[in-house]
Every structure is written in C-alpha cells, then in structure tokens.
C-alpha cells in the first residue's frame, strides 16, 4: 500500500517541528528543523507522484497533503521577511492538523472529486486563501486588543503598526486568491467573474479591507474608526467563509460542494 509509509512522514515531521519549537531561540537549528520537516512531506508527495503515475492532486486527501507542504513553506518565506515567530508556528500547527486529518481518515483518500475541481489552480487558490484568512483573522484579534486599549487604557502605537502590517500581508494574499480564482474560473467554466455568491462575498471582504487601508493611509493618527472598520471587515470575512451557504443567494453558488445522495 502506497499510503502505509505515511505514518513515518507524520512522525518525522512532527518530531522535527517539535524540536524547532523547543529550540526556537536557536535561529539556525530552528530553520533547519522546519525545512527538514517540510522536505519530508515534499519527498512523500514526490513518492506518491511516481507511484500513482499522475500528479497527486485528485483527491481531497492528496490536496491536504499539498496544503501541509505549502503552509510551512509559505510560513518560512513570510518569517524570513517579517520575523513573526507566531505566524511560523501557526503555519506548522495548521500543517500538522492536515497531516493528522489525513492519517485519521484514510477512507477519504479515494473520495470523489468533481471534475471542475481537478485543476492545477485548485491548490494555489485555496492555499493563498488559507493564508489570507490567517493573517486577517490575526489582524482582527489585534484590532480587538487595540479597541480595548483605546477605551480602557492608552492605545499603543505598536498595536496599530502590527494591525497595519497584518492587513497588508493578508490583503496581498486575499487579492492573489481572488485573482487566481478569476484565472481558474476562465479555464474551468468560461468566465473570470460570474458574480457567484461566494465571489460576491469575497469581493465585499476585499472592499472592506480596501476601505481600512485607505483610511489608515489618509488618517494615520486617527485610530478608533479604523479599528472599528477592521473589526467589522472580519465579520464580513466570516460571512464569506462560513455564512454564504445560509444566504438566500447561495442556491445558485458553485462554491457549495454539498452533494445530494
């Protein structure tokens, strides 16, 4: 069985990353262990690719494997640029979660995947969104902290700077996710923008953060309104992420993959 070696990957990656967490103050060792752990997953993907004689992109389990590979890779690049330790370990944790899900649900490996999703765009589109959501979720946490400080203490300037940085990174990923989605949609069903409810809500999210960015650029010293915009934008993001399926417009969406028996 091809997948029986998977437990080895899961164990070695978790072990290496655990070492990285313990030694997180030793810069070189930390990076080495994280990269090695990521390489383990990459090697397993390569192994699958050879054994299956096709890119392992067909099933959900295989896609999760790619997330598990890309998350630490992007986390590392982001770390090298911005030095956010929490972001780095957050991405490692998320990656491990995907590996564990894969281990716990072996039956999902052969699960059906509709033909429209079988595209090379699938992985970048979703991975980039996962990152955008991670950054933006973090930025709204910072916003809540900023609002608390504003009303009960004195607002720390660093808080605003952190919120801004996270929004910039998240917004960059969100834009890329939207644009990748547009390019994919053209390849898959003939138009890059069809006002599908999920697309519509993704655009609203994008516009919400666009307002925040412009407001901050215009009034860098006024924080309260910006923080409220940021907190509100996250509510919209949550609607886009989870809520779309419950709206009256969702019946026409291509992004709801619930299958009728």
């Amino acid at each position: 069985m091809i997948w029986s070696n998977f437990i080895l990957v899961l164990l070695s990656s978790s072990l290496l990353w655990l070492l990285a967490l313990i030694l997180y103050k030793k810069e070189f060792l930390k990076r080495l262990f994280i990269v090695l752990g990521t390489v383990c997953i990459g090697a397993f993907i390569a192994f699958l690719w050879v054994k299956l004689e096709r890119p392992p992109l067909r099933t959900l389990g295989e896609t999760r494997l790619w997330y598990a590979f890309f998350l630490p890779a992007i986390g590392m690049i982001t770390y090298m640029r911005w030095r956010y330790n929490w972001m780095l370990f957050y991405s490692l944790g998320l990656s491990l979660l995907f590996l564990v899900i894969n281990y716990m649900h072996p039956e999902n490996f052969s699960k059906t995947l509709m033909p429209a999703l079988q595209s090379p765009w699938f992985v970048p589109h979703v991975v980039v969104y996962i990152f955008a959501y991670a950054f933006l979720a973090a930025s709204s946490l910072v916003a809540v902290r900023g609002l608390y400080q504003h009303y009960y203490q004195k607002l720390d300037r660093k808080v605003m700077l952190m919120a801004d940085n996270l929004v910039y990174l998240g917004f960059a990923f969100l834009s890329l996710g939207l644009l990748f989605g547009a390019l994919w949609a053209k390849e898959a069903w003939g138009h890059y923008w069809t006002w599908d409810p999920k697309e519509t809500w993704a655009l609203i999210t994008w516009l919400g953060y666009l307002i925040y960015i412009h407001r901050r650029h215009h009034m860098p010293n006024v924080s309260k309104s910006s923080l409220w915009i940021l907190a509100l934008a996250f509510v919209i993001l949550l609607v886009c992420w989870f809520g779309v399926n419950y709206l009256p417009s969702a019946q026409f969406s291509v992004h709801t993959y619930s299958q009728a028996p």
Partner: protein
Amino acid sequence: MSIKKPIWQHPFGYAESFIISFGILSVGFILEFILPKTQSTLVFPLNLILGISFFVLLVVSHFLFRKTKIHSFLSGIPLTIALVSSLSFLVILMGILPQVSSHKTGLIQQLGLNQMTSSYPFLMINVLLLIVLAFVSLRKTFPFKLKNWGFVCSHWGLWIVIFAGGLGSGDLRRLKMDVYENKIELQSYDENKKLYEMPLAIKLKDFLIDEFNPKLAIVENETGKLYEAQKPSMIMIEKGLHCDLQSWKIQVEEFYVASGRAGDRYYQLADFGAAPAAKVQAISPQNDTLQGWISCGSFNRPHESLKLNDQFSLVMTVPEPKRFSSVVTFYTPDGKKQDATLEVNKPVTVNGWKIYQLSYDDKMGRYSNKSILEVVRDPWQPYVYLGIFMMMIGAVYMFWKGRETIRE
C-alpha cells in the same frame, strides 16, 4: 479632525463625499425605478469609441485641472472611501438577494436589486470610481517616480480590469452546443434557446467518461431518504470491502462495474446500458445475516436494493463522474481541420472561440452519446488579463513592502 469646517467649503472631506455618494445612489435608484428596463448593452464598435473618448476626456481634464481643488477632491481618499463604501453596500445587497431575472413586480425588481450589475446605481458608482481611480493614478504616474511602481501597477491594474471588463461585457458571447457522436454540429444556442450559426463546425468522434465506483448507502424505506445517523453515511464500493455502515457490518463479496442480471444473479457484461452490481452480506446489530445483490441500475436497467428490515434498505448510489472528455474535430471556414480532446478545465481555442467541455446527458451516464460544450468569445479578455497581472504584481509588491517602509 479637531477643527470643524463648515460643510461644502473646500477642501471637501468625508461629509461631502458621503453626501455626494448617497445622492448618486439615490438618483440611480430613482432612474431605475422610473425608466423602463432595457437589456441593451454596448457592443462593438460603440463601446470602444465610448471607452476611448472617456479615457481621452479623463487624461485631458487631468492635465487641464490638476491644480484645482475639485481635482484634488476627485482624486482624494475621502471620496474613494465613500464610493467604495457605496459599492460595498450595493454588492452586499447583491450577495444577499438572488441575482435572477424574474417576472414579479415587487420593489426588489423595480429597483433592479435582482439584476444589480445592470442597474443604474451600480453603473453610476462604477463610472465615478473609474474617474477617481484614473485621476489618482494619473497623478502618481506623471511625473513618474520609481518608488511608486507598486502603486501605479495596482491602481492602473484595477482601473483596466473594471474598464475592460465593464465595456467588454457587451461583446462577450457564451453559448452552448450539443454535439452527438459521429455528427457534425454547426449551431449553438444561448440561455433563451435562441439559435446561432457558428463560424466553426464540431464533429464529436467519441465521448469518454470515467466514473468513480458507486457507493453503499442506507435509505429509509418509506421516504427513500438517506439515513445519516453516523458519518460516513456513504462508503465507496470496492472488491472485498469490509466496512461498518451505521450499525450494520457490510461485506462486498462480488462487484462488477458493468453487469446484467440473469436468473438469480448478476454477470459481468459489456452491453449497452450494463450497470454496476454487487453481491453483499449485511450483518445486523442483532447478528442476523442477510445476503443479496444490489445494483444502481442504468437508463435501461432497473435498480435493486437489499431490504435490511422494515425500516431500512441497503442501496447502491449512481456513480459520480471522475472525468469526462470529448474527442472532437473542428472544421473552420478556411477549410482547415483540427483534432482535439476537450476536458473539464482544459479548454481549446479555435478561430477566436474558446471551447469548453461542460456536460453530457446525465440520464444516460456513461452511455451518453451527447456532449454539451460551451463556446465563448471574449475579445476584451487579453486586456482584463493585463489588468489582473498588474494587480498581481501590485499584490506581491504589497506583500514584500508591507506597511512600515511606506510610512516611516
């Protein structure tokens, strides 16, 4: 904003911006309410002429008025925020209300809220956004400073996407073609079933479909509904599969992807319409053993289920498609022939038309001899893509630069 300035005195700020945006929205909705609904869109060459004139007008007025107060207001952030907020408001309405044309005449229809993208308020806000975006981009482009390249890329990129996407929507053709095996088809149809003659003919040589194995499921006898007390409620069938489905232990003893019933059992068969079938053994929680054949049937064969008790039956689901493709030949008016295989996510471009595998006759499943193709012509697409790529560069710039270096 500690110093209060009276409203409608320059420089205009947020108050004026939001009042103006609100006014535009109101005028738009009033227009939508009183004017008759027309489905007219701009088509070539009118859209091109109008687009070029609009752009030239923008550039000329930029250079004539760039030192005026009204220009700095029109390219300023307060108006940008007010307009983006107005657009968000419209898009939120669009995200809540289903966007389908209807013959009802309620307020939603009269205000065009069910067809937002072709309504006056949407159009007016977008035109104003284009003006603001053009002025601010022109200001950052002339004189050009190298440090502004990220800004220039993202803002012009967005401008091009809205401009080319909006103007080009009238020239976009999305039609469908039904092609049958070994027949040549020249006609396509739109969503109203109106027929069009195509500048290319398509012959379907073969339609191929690859299916996943069917799944086991338990349904309620009375309603026929899927029983989902525990997950997974459906398990894919494989030869020799042992599994627990709800509280039954199921074993697949024999499985044929294509078979037919003869006497008391199914045999492997390659006939037209041959359906999947499996011999299964089910052990109930009370340790009663049942045995029998199940089949999902096909368009010409009945399905068969195994009754587990008075309440439930074990069934086989209809297999889902894994991939489907059409082997076709294209004939163009210049006498050329081109062979290709169309697959979902793998369109082919012929003579300016992009051809997509869309669907097939799903009642016939894998025996379908009909393939449904989508044919798309979008002459403005390269320009939209240019905008998209510029925005991507802008996004990467944003990721790399972040916030700090811009401010401090």
